[in-house]
């Protein structure tokens, strides 16, 4: 039977009609689109019960009280803890990325021993701990031979480390330079003692001098919440915010007023303001008022304009605004260990004394009871200590580094890294392979924040004594790590030293008890708050007499260090989930963009996008120029947190590290090492 023409047409027509009526073809098309996307290498989601557990997320410097969401026991997201009065349901961008950081490629996966330049081999915990004990035993009892650098300002771990050193006959416990350290020195210069706090929530005018309080200074989320409470959407604001600093940053962006003040002139700005307030009738009962008044009188509007570029009219408007306020507060400072020195702090804080706001707007927190006997406060900062190591004045044989990254986050970073090379045995207790860990002889991996017990006492900036604690959210850490404090307590016991505890959890329980706090309530997401101490301060006039305003220089630019909480901190490189937040005005490929205004760029002969070399001290860095009219004249704004040489593919080699070009000097009268207001030359390449 042949196929005739009619039969062929029938088949074709029948076939076409059939395709229209059968669902097979449409189903196939649908399946094609589904199955062409259903590849085995596309990650699948995790299944299981979703829970949210309270945690203390110490990934940002202040620490956020959060809830970690888990699915089938695995953390995947972080949300705010609305029940905690400090965070009030807010989360900073770093802690928001916390769950993913547990699996950061930069995590140290097991104990590591250095076997050659830049080479490490994984070792067992028992061998690692034995090595630590062996080295410490050899140096026990020789003061100056064992030192420790701590980068955690709030944890009781510091007490354990300090107590261990004392027990071993050593006093070399050093803190990384941070705001708290500098501010406490400042308070001493004003005849007081204790950690200063600032009550943003209880003030109707907040003048931030250099302190990026709404992004990266102090207890950021608490500050943001206090700010937000004064700005109900759709209604009138109940407080004014003013930012005076070198760059129009996040705090300045939402402030009522931004005053561009070059970084080296912040003290002059504060004293110029004091002069106007005194002329307007402000008086203080402080013993050194007469001296202060005479000093402030030197900062006439003309002098202030010369130092800051701010017009006399602008300063007068600000003084009038402060006078009109019922409860103003002045916050002077910086973030990220910017080396501001104590005098900038004193100049700002003296305004609070002048305005009669000590004890209310600006508070002093009482010293908290110690959990570890023999623990002493750090007398010197790590920058001063490493400078001594560099010159041979200090010659420790062993160095313990806890939650700190001195090889990256200290001025003249390359010199600091070299100084570390002078120490024979260095141990890093770090969660991540940071620049300092990469230089150490032994790396003992610390658990991630959601894998360990930890606490936070008085994060810098809080107005009242505040204590938070957290317990692990997961049953098992993602890596083969041990709590550094547990390791140190075990080592102490092997060295024949009893610090009174076996684990960090026990230390925190004791600390909570000493404070009168309920440990169980704390780890369930609660908070303990105490009172602020009264006490009086003087105006710090004798210290402020040493303030020097550097003369303007046509050839160099002042460096304004810019911090952005989302980009990480001194101890944490930008988390992978935060890379998106870095804008194309900040990083382009591997080039960091430095910020300056058009007039400054013209003066030094560079244009937008130009490749430049910044030189300062013994270091140099490369960058491109971004024109930003929110930068003070004669100033170059450089973002902190870039130019990592360790970590992971997400951060390594991106941008350059501004710490390399900062120059360290001794602050007159305080003995502190300072590097804020460093100057650099900027040249086209």
């Amino acid at each position, binding site marked *: 039977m042949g196929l005739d023409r009619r039969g062929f047409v029938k088949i074709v027509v029948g076939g076409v009609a059939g395709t229209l009526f059968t669902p097979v073809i449409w189903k196939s098309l*649908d399946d094609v*689109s*589904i199955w062409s*996307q259903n*590849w085995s290498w*596309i*990650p699948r*989601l*995790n299944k299981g019960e*979703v829970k949210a557990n309270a945690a203390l997320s110490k990934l940002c410097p202040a620490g956020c009280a959060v809830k970690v969401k888990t*699915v089938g026991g695995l953390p*995947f*997201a*972080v*949300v*705010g803890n609305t029940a905690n009065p400090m965070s009030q349901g*807010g989360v900073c*961008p770093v802690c*928001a*990325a916390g*769950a*993913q950081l547990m*699996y*950061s490629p930069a995590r140290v996966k097991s104990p590591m021993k250095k076997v050659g330049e830049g080479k490490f081999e994984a070792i067992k915990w028992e061998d690692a701990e034995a090595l630590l004990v062996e080295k410490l035993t050899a140096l026990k009892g020789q003061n100056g031979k064992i030192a420790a650098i701590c980068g955690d300002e709030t944890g009781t771990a510091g007490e354990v480390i300090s107590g261990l050193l004392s027990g071993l006959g050593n006093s070399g416990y050093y803190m990384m330079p941070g705001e708290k350290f500098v501010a406490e020195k400042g308070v001493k210069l004003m005849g007081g003692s204790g950690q200063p706090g600032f009550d943003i929530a209880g003030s109707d005018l907040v003048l931030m001098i250099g302190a990026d309080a*709404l*992004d990266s200074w102090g207890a950021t989320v608490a500050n*943001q*919440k206090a*700010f*937000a409470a004064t*700005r109900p*959407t*759709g209604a009138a604001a109940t407080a004014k915010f003013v930012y005076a600093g070198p760059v*129009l940053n*996040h705090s300045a*962006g*939402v402030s009522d007023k*931004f*005053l*561009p003040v070059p970084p080296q002139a912040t003290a002059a700005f504060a004293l110029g303001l004091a002069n106007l307030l005194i002329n307007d009738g402000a008086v203080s009962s402080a013993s050194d008022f007469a001296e202060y008044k005479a000093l402030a009188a030197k900062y006439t509007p003309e002098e202030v304009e010369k130092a800051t*570029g*701010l*017009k006399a009219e*602008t300063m007068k408007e600000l003084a009038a605004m402060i006078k009109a306020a019922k409860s103003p507060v002045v916050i002077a400072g910086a973030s990220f260990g910017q080396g501001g020195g104590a005098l900038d702090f004193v100049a700002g804080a003296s305004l609070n004394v002048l305005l009669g706001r000590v004890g209310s707007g600006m508070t002093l927190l009482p010293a908290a009871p110690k959990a570890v006997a023999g623990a002493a406060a750090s007398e010197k900062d790590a920058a001063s200590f490493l400078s001594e190591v560099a010159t041979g004045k200090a010659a420790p044989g062993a160095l313990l580094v806890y939650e700190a990254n001195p090889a990256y986050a200290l001025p003249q970073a390359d010199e600091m890294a070299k100084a570390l090379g002078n120490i024979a045995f260095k141990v890093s207790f770090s969660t991540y392979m940071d620049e300092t860990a990469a230089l150490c002889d032994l790396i003992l991996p610390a658990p991630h924040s959601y894998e360990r017990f930890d606490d936070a006492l008085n994060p810098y900036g809080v107005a009242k004594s505040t204590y938070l604690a957290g317990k692990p959210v997961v049953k098992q850490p*993602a890596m083969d790590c041990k709590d550094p404090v547990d390791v140190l307590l075990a080592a102490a016991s092997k060295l024949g030293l009893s610090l009174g505890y076996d684990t960090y959890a026990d230390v925190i329980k004791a600390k909570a008890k000493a404070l009168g706090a309920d440990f169980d309530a704390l780890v369930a997401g609660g908070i303990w708050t105490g009172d602020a101490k009264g006490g009086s301060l003087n105006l710090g006039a004798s210290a402020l007499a040493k303030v020097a305003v550097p003369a303007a220089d046509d050839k160099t630019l002042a460096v304004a260090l810019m911090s952005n*909480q*989302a980009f990480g901190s001194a101890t944490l490189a930008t988390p992978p*989930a*935060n*890379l*998106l*937040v870095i804008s*194309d*005005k900040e*990083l382009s*490929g591997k080039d960091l963009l430095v910020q300056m*205004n058009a007039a400054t760029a013209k003066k030094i002969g560079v244009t937008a996008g130009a490749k430049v070399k910044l030189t300062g001290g013994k270091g140099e860095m490369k960058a491109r120029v971004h024109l930003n*009219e*929110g930068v003070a004249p004669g100033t170059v704004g450089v973002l902190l947190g870039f130019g990592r040489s360790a970590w992971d*593919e997400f951060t390594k080699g991106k941008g350059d590290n501004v710490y390399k070009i900062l120059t360290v000097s001794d602050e007159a009268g305080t003995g502190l090492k300072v590097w804020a207001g460093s100057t650099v030359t900027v040249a086209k390449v």
Partner: protein
Amino acid sequence: MKAKEFKVTWGMVVDLDKCTGCGACMTACQVENNIAPMVDASNKMRTLSWMLVYELSNKKSGAEAEVAYLPRPCMQCGNPACVPVCPVIATDKNEEGGIVSQIYPRCIGCRYCMAACPYHARYFNWEDPVFPKGMEKALSPSTSTRPRGVVEKCNFCHTRFMQAKDKARQEGGNPESLPDGAYMPACAEICPTGAISFGDVKNKEHKVFELAQGKDAFRLLEKLGLNPQVYYVSKREWVRKLGDNYAATGKPGAAKKHS
């Protein structure tokens, strides 16, 4: 074409005078929606930013300089430009609540919707999602991962909407009339200054009802008539002007068309 009407209209009101530009919303969005980290995230032609914070400037210098930060999710337009151009109906606006859907398995990657969207709220997956080894353990159970070749965008964390409705059903409430705060996208939930408010802009009991009608409220490019469900609030006139930079009158609020 007449816009579809919904009884419930999920909307956002962003207070630009409260946004510090910290970026927590962007991070929370990335985490909630399983967006893989990119090694070179500075290549903004390739990144996926369902929520993106823009920096606005008043173009003045010195003490006159001002900036504002503008978080931009998908506007979930009442009359979306992206929906009619989709040849395969991978994106649609047909669900109570007015969220513009994006069905990844149906998307053929033609990107007409991206060309049509005036808010640049849509993103194309140029690469398969690759998470660093082990990080897939931290995937959120809320959003499936998308392969390369498909377009994606913010959907107001739609899974959270479904979960809020489920919860209402379990607790004997009305899933079609959720109370204020029962459903919150990740960005609004995490914002440390509470700059992002979220709710049903048609429900008087929801805070956003009033906020969206405030005198300083505006929407982006209102003149285009896309009827966005995302509102912004700023007391600063220059910010409001920038929000509607195609408005013929140049006067903020002149072309306001609140639904």
